[in-house]
């Protein structure tokens, strides 16, 4: 699920741009020439089928799902309206609350790690080194690999290779698979998620770093600034916008974590690594359609709130620059 989320979240960053720019551009641009001329019916042909399909595929299920969250539908047979019963139950369900806690905690940690590594890698890949192109090409590979498949590979490494290594070297903490430990399994998920999503963030940072004019650094060189100072007080502020994009992108993607968890721990040990998506789907498999739709609706509201927050932040950022 990591790859598809990049575009969705990436685009929201620019939603604001279009929304603000759009109308003015257009009042000044194309249409004014033809004035109030009748719209060519072909334009409707271009748009309406897509609109209808979109409504049926996205809007209708959303409405239907919200409606069912107020029923006791199990996915089959009769049902009754039950008001807010499901929502009340959701709020007091430790399984659901802990899945939110896990998902948010995991997302925050992963965002931090991914951005730190991707940023440093990007700095390294744009500095005075050789073999830039092949190195960059290698670092991007994980982006094109399916999350669940690479999770299976890592699962083998975590539960067979590392313990074998631990046994051979006599290092005790290596001998137990981290995936089998309730308190550590999440680390495995963070590692694999980071492995897979660093490339996306990396490419964005590289673009950001390359957009900084060389003169900025020349001035710093004259002042004799150390590498670290240069990085912190020149580079970082100049790519702040890119950092923001990456953080928002990543966070929204990680909230939907599913594939990699299915492949690595299937939510275990115990229920230690159950994400929100996983709780919804396993609950449904157990015949909890309406109840999990209440959960999904809550999740939807949270996703919208985050998006609004994100719009405000980027608006603030836009106002600054």
């Amino acid at each position, binding site marked *: 699920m990591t790859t598809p989320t990049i575009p969705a979240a990436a685009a929201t960053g620019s939603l604001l741009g279009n929304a603000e720019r759009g109308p003015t551009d257009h009042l000044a641009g194309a249409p004014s020439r033809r004035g109030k001329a009748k719209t060519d019916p072909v334009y409707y042909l271009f748009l309406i089928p897509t609109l209808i399909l979109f409504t*049926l595929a996205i809007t*209708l299920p959303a409405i239907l799902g919200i409606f069912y969250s107020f029923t*006791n539908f199990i996915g089959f047979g009769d049902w009754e309206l039950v008001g807010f019963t499901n929502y009340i139950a959701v709020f007091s369900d430790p399984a659901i609350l802990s899945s939110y806690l896990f998902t948010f905690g995991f997302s925050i940690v992963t965002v931090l790690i991914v951005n730190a590594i991707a940023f440093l890698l990007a700095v390294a890949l744009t500095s005075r080194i050789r073999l830039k192109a092949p190195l960059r090409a290698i670092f991007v590979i994980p982006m094109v690999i399916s999350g669940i498949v690479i999770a299976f590979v890592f699962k083998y490494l975590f*539960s067979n290779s590392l313990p074998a290594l631990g046994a051979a070297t006599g290092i005790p903490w290596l001998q*137990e698979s981290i995936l089998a*430990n309730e308190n550590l399994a999440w680390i495995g998920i963070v590692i694999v998620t980071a492995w897979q999503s660093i490339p996306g963030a990396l490419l964005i940072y590289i673009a950001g770093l390359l957009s900084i004019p060389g003169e900025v650094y020349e001035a710093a060189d004259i002042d004799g600034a150390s590498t670290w100072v240069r990085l912190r007080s020149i580079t970082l502020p100049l790519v702040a916008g890119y950092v923001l994009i990456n953080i928002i992108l990543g966070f929204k993607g990680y909230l939907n974590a599913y594939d990699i968890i299915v492949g690595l721990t299937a*939510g*275990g*040990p115990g229920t230690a690594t159950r994400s929100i998506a996983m709780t919804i789907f396993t609950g449904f498999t157990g015949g909890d359609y309406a109840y999990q739709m209440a959960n999904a609706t809550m999740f939807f509201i949270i996703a919208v709130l985050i998006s609004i927050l994100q719009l405000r932040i980027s608006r603030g950022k836009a106002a600054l620059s």
Partner: protein
Amino acid sequence: MLHRKSLLSRVSMTVAAVLGTSIALTGCSAIGGGGPTEITFHMSKPEAIGFFRDLTAQFNEEQSDVHVTLDTASNLSAGFLRGDPPDVGLLNYNMEMSRFMERGALSDLSDMPEAARIRPDVQELADQYSTYPGRTSVLPYSVAAASVIYNVQMFEDNGLDVPETWDELIAICETLQDAGITPIYSTFSEPWTIAQGLFDYTAGGSVDVADFFDQMNELGTEVGPESAVSFEKNFTEPVEKMMELAAYTNDDAASRSYGDGNVAFAKGEAAMLMQGPWALGEIAKTDEDLELGTFPLPATDDPNDLKVRVNLDLALWVPEIGDAQEASREFVSYLMQQDVMDEYNAQFLGFGTTTDAAPAEDERILGMQEYYNDGRFYLGPSQRVHLSIPTANYVQAIATGADIDSTLSRLDADWARLALRE
């Protein structure tokens, strides 16, 4: 109140109208024209896929009215939700299915002669989950009796006899451990293996499972610290025993999977394995000649308490909404032929569910035959909890170190909460 189903049907008609072309292109191959009636047959027990694939092919060959397609991996909840469940289901009977059954999803098969052949005490197992008034919705097909699988050679080498009391069992573990043998091989990385193994054996061996769950269902939302029965109250002791046994398992249990366990056990890495008969076939894949036996886990100090854990490993049902009832029933009859059932049970080490079933002959499960004949069995308690409560995961958590009391009380709280929104 809204008129039920009207919303859905209206929605579906609109959608169908708009997407008409794509439907015409893809679905509905069964409708229209001559040819055999197409039905789908859901059978997802991994070990038995080959057996039923051959059987299905044979059925398709023998007659031309019905064509059966085997479906081994679809999601049943999704199938019912789509309004397109398989036409015939043959699978492990559990709370998930019983919940659909409760709402009338499965048709009445009581008028089929096959229904009359089922042993009453076995049919009663299905009814323990739930019933739909006036219907026999489920035909038990094979019962898996599960108990402790042991390495006969290792027991003999150490002069051990099959234990009949808890103390004897612990003594055996001690002896084995002293001899440098891992007493029990566990695979905690897969929650179901602990839930159906150690947990069900210790709990089922000491708690009256049917009675307990009757009372729990009665209590519903009132289950909690104060209620007459609860997991915390009735299961703490068995779970403590479970942990006592867990101490005798392999050190890397937490990262071993079901498959690892079968291979390791076949290689003689441990003396006992808490698995059902399905594992025996897998073990034989690694070492065909390994001599194995089974005995019910003694969870108390009274040999009269000995019972084996059973589950309806396979049960047949036909959904109410299937549009090929006749064809489906024809196939059910085919599957229910006594020699077919006997062959299945012989091959997969199950016990027959019918009054005229052939007795088990395989010595690996002979140890359980008398218990099964006498009706000294219980349904695994982990199977009696609704699937939306992650019982197996809770048990896994306990096995890997979580607190027993708080985990069991969480199970109680989940039970009460589920009852609230039922």
